[in-house]
């Protein structure tokens, strides 16, 4: 098996290496720059070689300035973001995984209609949904509460589709009918047969839901009236707006310059990367589990 997997010719191997190297450069160079930027002063970022390393103390300085912004507001933002995204993540998984499963592997009247409506809603520009959602939240008196963010975050048609496609192309219906013939209830079929096979898709859905919500700016911006409720993206926006780089009206008293913004950026994406690594593990583990079953 290993013999056949290896690239046949040197040329093919070389081509593979070159394409991958280019791709890595394309995706990573800006990120590397961002990492290095936190080690430099504002002047160094602009004037020095983009890939020079500043000094570790610069990171500490940047962190002090960042932390001093609104007395540690950055931590509040992260905490809020975590609350909204994990809250929504739980609800999303509970609702969309069974739904995707049912759409793929059970038959019921309205299945096709549900798929169509899901698609239709998914294609609706989000900008158009803001006013209706805002009015809706206001009508049920949830405006200004954390639910006005968590609940819309929990509606994740993208995930339902991922699950649907996953189950419909990866889990043979025969497997389920065999379980049914063995006397499993529908719930048992789902829990004992489908769920163990669903790990990769759960990881995918969970991950995309988390990232989408973590990076969502507009909905929390519109829904939340209080700066103590802001999640990281809205907070970052305020941080940008407070920087003399963009806000000349604030005068020169403010310490939020390029290194601080770079650091704030990194701090807010760390959770996303951690979740990515975890979900990747589940993705691979799930695939291996599937392989041993075959």
């Amino acid at each position: 098996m290993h013999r056949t997997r290896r690239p046949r010719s040197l040329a093919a191997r070389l081509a593979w290496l070159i394409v991958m190297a280019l791709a890595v450069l394309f995706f990573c160079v800006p990120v590397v720059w961002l990492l290095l930027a936190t080690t430099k002063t504002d002047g160094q970022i602009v004037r020095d070689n983009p890939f020079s390393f500043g000094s570790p103390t610069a990171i500490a300085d940047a962190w002090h300035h960042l932390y001093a912004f609104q007395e540690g507001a950055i931590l509040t933002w992260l905490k809020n973001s975590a609350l909204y995204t994990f809250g929504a993540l739980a609800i999303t998984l509970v609702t969309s995984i069974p739904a995707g499963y049912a759409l793929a592997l059970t038959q019921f009247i309205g299945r096709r209609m549900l798929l169509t409506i899901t698609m239709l809603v998914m294609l609706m520009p989000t900008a158009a949904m803001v006013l209706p959602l805002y009015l809706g939240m206001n009508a049920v008196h949830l405006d200004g509460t954390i639910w006005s963010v968590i609940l819309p975050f929990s509606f994740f048609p993208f995930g339902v589709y991922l699950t649907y496609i996953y189950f419909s192309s990866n889990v043979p219906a025969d497997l389920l009918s065999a379980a049914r013939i063995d006397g499993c209830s529908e719930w048992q079929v789902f829990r004992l047969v489908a769920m163990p096979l669903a790990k990769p898709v759960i990881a995918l859905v969970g991950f995309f839901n988390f990232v989408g919500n973590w990076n969502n700016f507009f909905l929390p911006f519109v829904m939340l009236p209080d700066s103590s409720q802001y999640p990281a993206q809205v907070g970052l926006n305020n941080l940008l707006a407070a920087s003399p780089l963009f806000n000349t009206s604030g005068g020169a008293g403010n310490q939020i310059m390029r290194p601080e913004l770079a650091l704030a950026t990194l701090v807010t994406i760390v959770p996303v990367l951690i979740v990515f690594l975890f979900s990747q593990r589940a993705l691979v583990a799930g695939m291996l589990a599937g392989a041993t079953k075959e």
Partner: protein
Amino acid sequence: MTTHLATERSGRRGGRSARNPVGRAGYVFVSGYVLFLLAFGVLPTVYAVWLALSNSRNQLVGIGNFTRTFTDYRFGPAFLHIGLYLVVWLASLMILVVLLSLMLHGRMRRASTTLRFLFYLPGALAGVASVLLFLILLDPAASPVGWLLKGFGWNTLAQVNAPGHLPVLFTVIAFWTGAGGWIVVMYGALNSIPDEILEAARIDGASTLQIALRIQIPMITKWIAYMLILAFAAGTQLFVEPQLVSLASWGMIPDSWSPNQLSYQYAFQAGDFNGAAALSIDLLVLGLACAALVVFRTGLFDRDER
């Protein structure tokens, strides 16, 4: 309740219906999602459609908002921009994502895990967080890719952001942040193809290219179709990239470059939610047309009855 359903079914017809039980179980499984779909999908959409068909005094105006926004001086350019962008964006996304996924797949598991992580990295940088990055990245004087920009003959921020460059520029940004996620999805899809099939093909003497074209791509058609629909919709709804670049270039991008931005201008600058909704419905119709085409071509909605 579930046991009740099961007993009801276990004694029923065999054959095809045993594989595709028609019953209430499906309803139970989708019920939670349907609630959310109604509350946060269908209702807002219906309201948006109503907005598009009415005026600020809640009177029905028919297609008035559509004709009114159609004659707006920004309508034509915005849709032209987005058309150009879509061509570049869809072509690059479809080809490169599938290509990179295929190349990653089946070769050195460990390296491919690392590579997928590296490709995904920029995806975490979507939104506001990346403004600072573009502030520097697009300015040849301080950019880490300054040599490249200068190589194109662009020596200032304004030259990089010249109107003619924008569709490509936004594609690069969107690809940079979005491709990694799709590569993960495609990789997962490729992984679900049983090794035996590929192995058999190899033994039959099929080349890597033949395997990719005749086996792997056909077997992940549904995933590609799904990506195409969403990428098309996301492309027509382009909003974030022009906003970010505009912010990072002190306003060099027109505030209504894309239709979705125009819709935003209608809603929040002019306070005209009806015109804004009409523009959004235009985009929805475009997205639906693409989706319908893809769905019928690929059988995305059909259940696979292998």
